[in-house]
C-alpha cells in the first residue's frame, strides 16, 4: 500500500499564491503569460505552417510522377524541398512537440501553476511567427535551394534568400533555447510537494530530457548559421576553401545541433506514447525507471553521434569509427523503450481510442524506422545509402511515423482537457487509417528505390528510370499514397475546429487517466490548481486510488466516462 505521508514540505505558502486573473483580450489571448494559452498559440501556428509545408511536399511528390519532372523547373523543385524541410523541422515539429505539448501539459502534470519564467515563455512563442516571416519572405528572393541543411559552398549561391534563411533559423533558435531553459528550470524547481523525480509522469521526464537538448544544442546551430550568415553578408571565410575555410566545418557545427534535434522531435513523442499506452491498457507502464533513464541516456548520447550524418562527406577515416560505435549504442535505450511499451500492452484492457490507435501505429512504424537507422549506423552500408531516397525513407518513418504520430496521439488525448470537449472519435479513426496507410505507401518504396540508385534532392530522375523501368510506377505510387496523409492532416484540422462546438462534453477525466491534469476542470482555470496537491506515488497504478492528497476535485479513482464510451457500442455512451 502507499505511504500516507509525503516526504517534503506540505501545503507550502509559496505554491498556493494565486495571481489575479488577466484582463482584456490582448492580455488574455495575444500577449498571454499563461502556459496553456501559449500552448494553444504554438499549436495553431504549428498546424498552419504544417499545412503550408505539407503542400510543398505534395508539389515535390507531383513533380516526381514523371522522370523528366512533371510540373516545375529544377530551381523551383529545389526550393520546394528546401522550404518543406526547413519549415517542418523548425516551424512545425519543434514548436508543436515542445512549444504546444510541453507548454500545455508539463506544468499541469507536475502540479504547477505555470512555468518558471512565464514572460520568457511568451517571448519564446512570439519569436516563432517572426522567424516564419523571415523564412517565407526568403521565397521572394527565390528561397533556399540546398535543402534544410543548406551546406556551403552551394548554399552561398542562394544570395539574399540564403542570408534570410540563416536569419530565420538563428531567430527560431533563440526561441528553442529559451524554452529549453524555461522547462528545465520548471521541472527542477516547481514540482508539487511529494513529487520526487521517480514519481514524475513519463511525459515530464521526456519534456525534461528534450529541454536539456534544446538548451544545450541549439546554440551550436546558432553558431553554424550565424557563421554562414557572416559569410553571406560580410564574406567572412569560415567555410570558404579558397581562403583557408572548410565546408566540412559547417557540417560539423550544423550536425552537432541537428542530431540532438531529431531526438528533440522524438522524445516528447515517446513521452506521449508512455502516457497513452498506459492509460488505454489500464495498467502501469512497464519498466518505468528504464524508460525514464533511457530518455536521459538518449539525450546525453545524442551529443556524441552527429558525424554519422557525415560518413561519406569529408570526415577523417579514423573518426568514422567512434561515431559508428556510439550510433549503434544509442539504439539500445531506444530498443528498451519499444520492448517496454509492447510489454505494457500485454495483459492489458485495451481501448481503441484515436490516441491509442496512433500509439499502436507508432510502435510499428517507429520500430521500422529505427531499424533502418541501425542499417545506416554501419559506415560501409551508409556509404551506399547516403544521399539516396533510403535516407528520406528512414527519417520519414521515424519523424512522420514516430514524432508526428506521437503528436497525433497527443492531440485527441489532451484536447478534452484543453477545451472541455472530446474530438470526434469517428473522424479520428478515419484519420488514423489514412495516415498509417498513406505513410507506409509513400515511404516504403523509397527504401529500395534508394538502394537501387535513386538519389534524394533529384528534380528529375531520367538516368534512374532508364536503368530501372519501374521507377516511375513506384514514384507515382508514392505520390498517390501521399495524398492519403494529406487528407488525414486536413481531417485533423477539421476535427480540431469542428469539435470545439460540436464535440461531446468531456468532463474532468474522460479517459480515467491518473496524472495530475486529470484532477482539475476541463478546461482548467487560469490558475490550474486551487490547491497545489501533494503526491505520494507514481501515477500508473490503475488498480489503486489516485496517489494524491489535497486535489481540487474529488474524482472517482476509476474511469467515469472514457471506459464507458469505449466499451459500449456506438450510440449508448453516457
Amino acid at each position, binding site marked *: 500500500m502507499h505511504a500516507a505521508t509525503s516526504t517534503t514540505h506540505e501545503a507550502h505558502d509559496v505554491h498556493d499564491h494565486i495571481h489575479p486573473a488577466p484582463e482584456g483580450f490582448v492580455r488574455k489571448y495575444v500577449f498571454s503569460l499563461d502556459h496553456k494559452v501559449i500552448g494553444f498559440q504554438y499549436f495553431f501556428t504549428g498546424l498552419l505552417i504544417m499545412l503550408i509545408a505539407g503542400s510543398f511536399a505534395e508539389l515535390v511528390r507531383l513533380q516526381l510522377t514523371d522522370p523528366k519532372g512533371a510540373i516545375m523547373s529544377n530551381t523551383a523543385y529545389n526550393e520546394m524541398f528546401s522550404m518543406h524541410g526547413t519549415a517542418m523541422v523548425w516551424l512545425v515539429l519543434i514548436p508543436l512537440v515542445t512549444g504546444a505539448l510541453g507548454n500545455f501539459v508539463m506544468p499541469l502534470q507536475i502540479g504547477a501553476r505555470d512555468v518558471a519564467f512565464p514572460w520568457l515563455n511568451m517571448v519564446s512563442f512570439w519569436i516563432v511567427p517572426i522567424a516564419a516571416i523571415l523564412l517565407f519572405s526568403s521565397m521572394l528572393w527565390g528561397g533556399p535551394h540546398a535543402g534544410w541543411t543548406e551546406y556551403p559552398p552551394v548554399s552561398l549561391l542562394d544570395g539574399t534568400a540564403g542570408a534570410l534563411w540563416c536569419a530565420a533559423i538563428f531567430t527560431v533558435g533563440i526561441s528553442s533555447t529559451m524554452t529549453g531553459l524555461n522547462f528545465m*528550470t520548471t521541472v527542477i524547481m516547481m514540482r508539487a510537494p511529494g513529487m520526487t523525480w521517480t514519481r514524475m509522469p513519463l511525459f515530464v521526464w521526456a519534456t525534461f530530457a528534450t529541454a536539456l537538448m534544446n538548451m544545450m544544442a541549439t546554440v*551550436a546551430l*546558432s*553558431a553554424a548559421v550565424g557563421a554562414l550568415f557572416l559569410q553571406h553578408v560580410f564574406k*567572412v571565410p569560415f567555410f570558404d576553401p579558397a581562403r583557408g575555410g572548410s565546408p566540412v566545418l559547417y557540417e560539423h557545427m550544423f550536425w552537432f545541433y541537428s542530431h540532438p534535434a531529431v531526438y528533440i522531435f522524438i522524445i516528447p513523442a515517446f513521452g506521449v506514447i508512455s502516457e497513452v499506452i498506459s492509460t488505454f491498457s489500464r495498467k502501469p507502464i512497464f519498466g518505468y525507471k528504464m524508460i525514464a533513464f533511457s530518455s536521459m541516456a538518449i539525450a546525453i548520447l545524442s551529443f556524441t553521434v552527429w558525424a554519422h550524418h557525415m560518413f561519406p562527406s569529408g570526415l577523417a577515416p579514423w573518426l568514422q569509427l567512434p561515431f559508428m560505435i556510439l550510433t549503434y549504442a544509442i539504439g539500445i535505450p531506444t530498443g528498451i523503450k519499444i520492448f517496454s511499451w509492447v510489454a505494457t500492452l500485454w495483459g492489458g484492457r485495451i481501448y481503441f481510442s484515436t490516441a491509442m490507435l496512433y500509439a499502436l501505429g507508432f510502435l510499428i512504424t517507429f520500430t521500422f524506422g529505427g531499424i533502418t537507422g541501425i542499417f545506416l549506423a554501419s559506415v560501409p552500408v551508409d556509404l551506399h545509402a547516403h544521399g539516396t531516397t533510403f535516407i528520406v525513407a528512414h527519417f520519414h518513418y521515424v519523424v512522420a511515423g514516430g514524432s508526428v504520430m506521437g503528436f497525433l496521439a497527443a492531440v485527441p488525448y489532451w484536447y478534452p482537457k484543453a477545451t472541455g470537449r472530446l474530438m470526434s472519435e469517428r473522424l479520428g479513426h478515419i484519420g488514423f487509417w489514412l495516415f498509417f496507410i498513406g505513410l507506409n505507401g509513400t515511404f516504403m518504396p523509397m527504401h529500395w528505390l534508394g538502394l537501387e540508385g535513386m538519389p534524394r534532392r533529384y528534380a528529375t530522375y531520367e538516368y534512374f528510370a532508364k536503368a530501372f523501368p519501374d521507377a516511375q510506377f513506384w514514384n507515382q505510387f508514392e505520390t498517390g499514397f501521399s495524398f492519403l496523409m494529406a487528407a488525414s492532416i486536413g481531417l485533423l484540422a477539421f476535427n480540431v475546429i469542428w469539435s470545439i462546438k460540436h464535440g461531446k462534453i468531456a468532463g474532468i477525466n474522460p479517459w480515467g487517466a491518473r496524472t495530475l491534469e486529470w484532477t482539475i476542470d476541463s478546461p482548467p482555470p487560469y490558475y490550474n490548481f486551487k490547491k497545489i496537491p501533494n503526491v505520494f506515488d507514481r501515477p500508473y497504478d490503475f488498480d489503486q486510488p489516485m496517489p494524491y492528497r489535497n486535489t481540487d476535485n474529488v474524482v472517482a479513482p476509476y474511469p467515469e466516462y472514457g471506459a464507458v464510451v469505449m466499451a459500449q457500442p456506438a450510440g449508448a455512451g453516457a
Partner: protein
Amino acid sequence: MAAAAVHVSGHDLVAVRYRDVDPVYAETRSIRLVGFMLFLISDCILFSAFIFAYIYLRTSAPTWPPMVDGHQLPWFDTSFAAMNSIVLFGSGVTMHFALENWKHLNKQKFNRWLIATIVLGIGFLLGQAHEYSVVGITWAGSTMGASFFTLTGLHGFHVFIGVCYLTILGIQANRGVYTGSKYFGLTAGTLYWHFVDVIWVALFFLFYLW
C-alpha cells in the same frame, strides 16, 4: 535574528535575511538562480561552438598565421592584450567587492566599486577597439581574421551588454529596487560579469598564448 551589531560573514547574513524569514522569496530566488545558471551554460556552449571552429580551422591550416597573398599574417601582440586582460580581471575583482559591500549594507562603497567595475569594463572595450585597429588582419581576409574578430567580437558584445546591465543595476539599486535581503539582480549581474571574465581567459589563451 535582526541585523546584529557584531560583524558577521556575508553568508550568514544571507541566511538570516531571507531563507528563514521569507520562504516565498527564497523559492523565487532559487528558481531564478537555476534559470540564470542554465542561461550561462548555454552561452558557454555558444562560445564553445565558435572555439571549435577556430581550433578546427587553425589545426587544418598548413601554416599559422595563414598566408594571404603571399604574405604571412602577423602574430598578435601579447603584451598589450595581457594589459587589457588585467583591466578586465580587475573589473571582476571590483564587482566582487561591490556585491560584498551590498550584502554588508554599505551602499556608498557598493556604488564606488560598481562604478569602478563599469569604468574598467569600458576601459577593456576601448582597449579592444585599439587592438582591432592595430592587429593588421581583416575579418573577411583570412580564417585567422574570421575566428579572431568573430570570437572576440562576440565576447566584446557580451561585455558591452554587461556594462549596460551593470549600469541599469546601479540605477535600480540607488532607486531602492533592491534591499539588503532581496538583491537577486545584483547576484545575477555579478555572475554574468564573472562569466565574461572566464570566457576571456579561454580566448586570451587561444589567441595570444597558443
